[in-house]
């Protein structure tokens, strides 16, 4: 178990990087605390695999330091870092039995035979594969194989952290949640630092207490699932988390608030003051489809929008509307009904209307 710290870390695959575009990871500081359950979430190409390879030691960062419990490990090989990794595809020896697969890392480390037996038994019980111990690995199903891969990581008592790289890709949808539950139980039981890399928000939020969202070589937010949903720190997080993503609209300042098309949205006093002070013209407002209300009555707080499309997804509906020349998506329950082209009145509850300057969220300073 270890705390993993990234200090002024940056990485470029190019020999002499010049601008930020040359970096796969732009300079950042980050700490994964001891015993935490973390996820690293982002689209393909965001830099998350590079980051994982830097932590495990497969890639040497071009700048900055990787520290395990305060000690620099940049120069250590993956083996010497005592990191276990679980990949997309199970990494096991097909010709060996499950028992031999689990015992293998311990034998390599010259652990006494009696100890090996007890430890393998213990891990097999945790993973609920004790009845498979004497089966050849090649006869296992995909999810059982992936459990054995995890077991090979867990079995070593000296392991400092386990890194998971999209570990459920090959697992059938119906079995995925059972493995996710297993992972969570393992984390609670073993208290190991775990970092789970994925592009899937469901997997990230289920597994992790805190999620680092990566975009374009940067960590744009590090927060709990609730924080990512309710207060996305960057427009990308708003877009990426939630289905559909957040409505994000470019706006101009006007007296008392901001506007897009003919629509004026009033802002709070502190937001107006803040807009006074900054120079940037890149100002946006964001509101999640889940938080827009459809009002049965017209008032000075409602905005008349036109229904463009209703998508019935069985358990809920996504209503696409047009407001001030912008598309605005609203999520409604399955009972919602309206005709295309009809007028509906939208209400934007103040606490859910967020302000973004240069793509980052601006929040009221706590007194």
């Amino acid at each position, binding site marked *: 178990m270890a705390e993993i710290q990234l200090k002024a870390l940056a990485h470029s695959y190019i020999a002499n990087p010049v601008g930020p575009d040359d970096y796969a990871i732009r300079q950042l500081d980050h700490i994964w605390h001891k015993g935490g359950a973390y996820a690293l979430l982002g689209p393909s190409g965001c830099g998350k695999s590079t980051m994982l390879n830097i932590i495990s030691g497969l890639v040497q960062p071009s700048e900055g330091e990787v520290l395990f419990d305060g000690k620099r490990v940049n120069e250590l090989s993956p083996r010497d870092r005592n990191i276990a990794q679980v990949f997309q595809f199970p990494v096991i020896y097909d010709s060996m039995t499950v028992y031999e697969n689990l015992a293998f890392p311990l034998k390599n480390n010259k652990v006494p035979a009696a100890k090996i037996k007890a430890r393998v038994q213990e891990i097999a019980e945790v993973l609920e594969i004790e009845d498979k111990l004497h089966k050849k690995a090649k006869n296992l199903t995909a999810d059982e194989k992936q459990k054995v891969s995890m077991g090979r990581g867990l079995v070593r008592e000296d392991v400092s952290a386990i890194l998971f790289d999209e570990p459920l890709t090959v697992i059938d949808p119906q079995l995925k949640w059972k493995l996710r539950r297993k992972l969570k139980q393992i984390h609670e039981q073993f208290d190991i630092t775990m970092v789970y890399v994925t592009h899937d928000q469901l997997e990230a939020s289920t597994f992790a207490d805190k999620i680092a969202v990566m975009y374009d070589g940067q960590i744009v937010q590090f927060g709990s699932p609730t924080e990512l949903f309710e207060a996305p720190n960057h427009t990308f997080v708003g877009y990426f988390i939630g*289905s559909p993503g957040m409505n994000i609209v470019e706006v101009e300042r006007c007296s008392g608030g901001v506007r897009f098309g003919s629509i004026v949205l009033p802002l709070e006093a502190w937001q107006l003051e803040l807009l006074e002070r900054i120079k940037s013209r890149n100002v946006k407002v964001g509101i999640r489809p889940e938080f827009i209300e459809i009002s049965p009555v017209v008032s000075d707080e409602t905005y008349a929008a036109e229904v463009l499309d209703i998508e*019935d997804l069985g358990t809920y509906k996504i209503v696409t509307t047009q407001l001030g020349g912008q598309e605005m998506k609203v999520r409604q329950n399955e009972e919602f009904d309206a005709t295309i082209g009809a007028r509906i009145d939208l209400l934007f509850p103040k606490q859910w209307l967020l302000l973004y300057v240069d793509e980052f969220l601006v929040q009221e300073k706590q007194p």
Partner: protein
Amino acid sequence: MSLTLENLSRTVDGIDYVRDANLTFEAGSFNVLLGRTLAGKTSMMRLMAGLDKPTEGRVLHRGEDVTGQSVQRRNISMIYQQFINYPTLTVYENIASPLRLAKMAKSEIDRRVKETASMLQIEPLLKRYPLELSGGQQQRTAMARALVKDATLVLFDEPLVNLDYKLREELRAELRELFRERQCIAVYATTEANEALALGGTTTLLHEGRVVQTGPVMDVYRAPTNTLAAQLFSEPPMNMIRGRVTSTEVTFDEYSHHALTQELEKLTPGDYWFGIRPSHISLVPTNDDDLEMSMEVALSEISGSETFMHVENSHFEMVMQLMGVHQYHTGAPVKVYLPVNKLFVFDSSEQLVHTPSRVSGGAL
């Protein structure tokens, strides 16, 4: 212009890949084949394309027997999970390749390539090579090549499975738009119920090589003919509880007793399966006659905008789909409520006998 599968079967080494399929696909229709891994989706599409020969039955195109006629002789496009492009050709040439094969005039090729590329938003990439593109862009290129030649039959075999879920969401919406105007037959295979719902059109449920049910997507979703259809077309799967109805009450698993109310009163005494969608179970009662059950949390899965909560007790296991973020520790006790008017009822041979009355214009 329709395509018909007539008593179609394909058996390999005693295993039924497709068993006695009878289906008709109309021109201009979008058809989704929904089923788990090995349900027969790919096998069925290969039979339609003439890539495999059926053991029994025929494939008819516009009434003409085309069984086993190869793809080359028919105007068919196929799009696979893997992004298949020619690595040595530019995106432009990749898209143009089927038209060059058909010896189309240069100016027409140019017009079509640009039109298709702009539809799929890859026009700026036409001069690049596939390996310089992201996964999503590579799959768009493969799709453009499949769509450029105006095929009469376009087959998609889980085309989005290797993409980020956000990209999937976007491409799905684009596909719906693209096919609205087309006169070809589109067939799309997926393992995901939510994808079938998002794509719309006609849904055919497949299981172990057999057609379980087929029809307009919402008809199948709202009235699954049996418990298998109900579970296949629900993600997470519909919760199923065994129950016995007497003249006065319903008992679930000989354990949980409830008075009969509403539509349940119409059921003749006997054994039934009761189905309820994960999104209809709640943590707070919504009606006086909701069925209340004490459960424990097995896992709370959070997707961002919603939570899938797995709950269990010594008798039942259920999944709930809740709006918003609900964090619960494993083992936490909860009371859950099942609204009677949302129950599907299946008889002891698992056939549908009652669908929930749809509440229209309900409270918003």
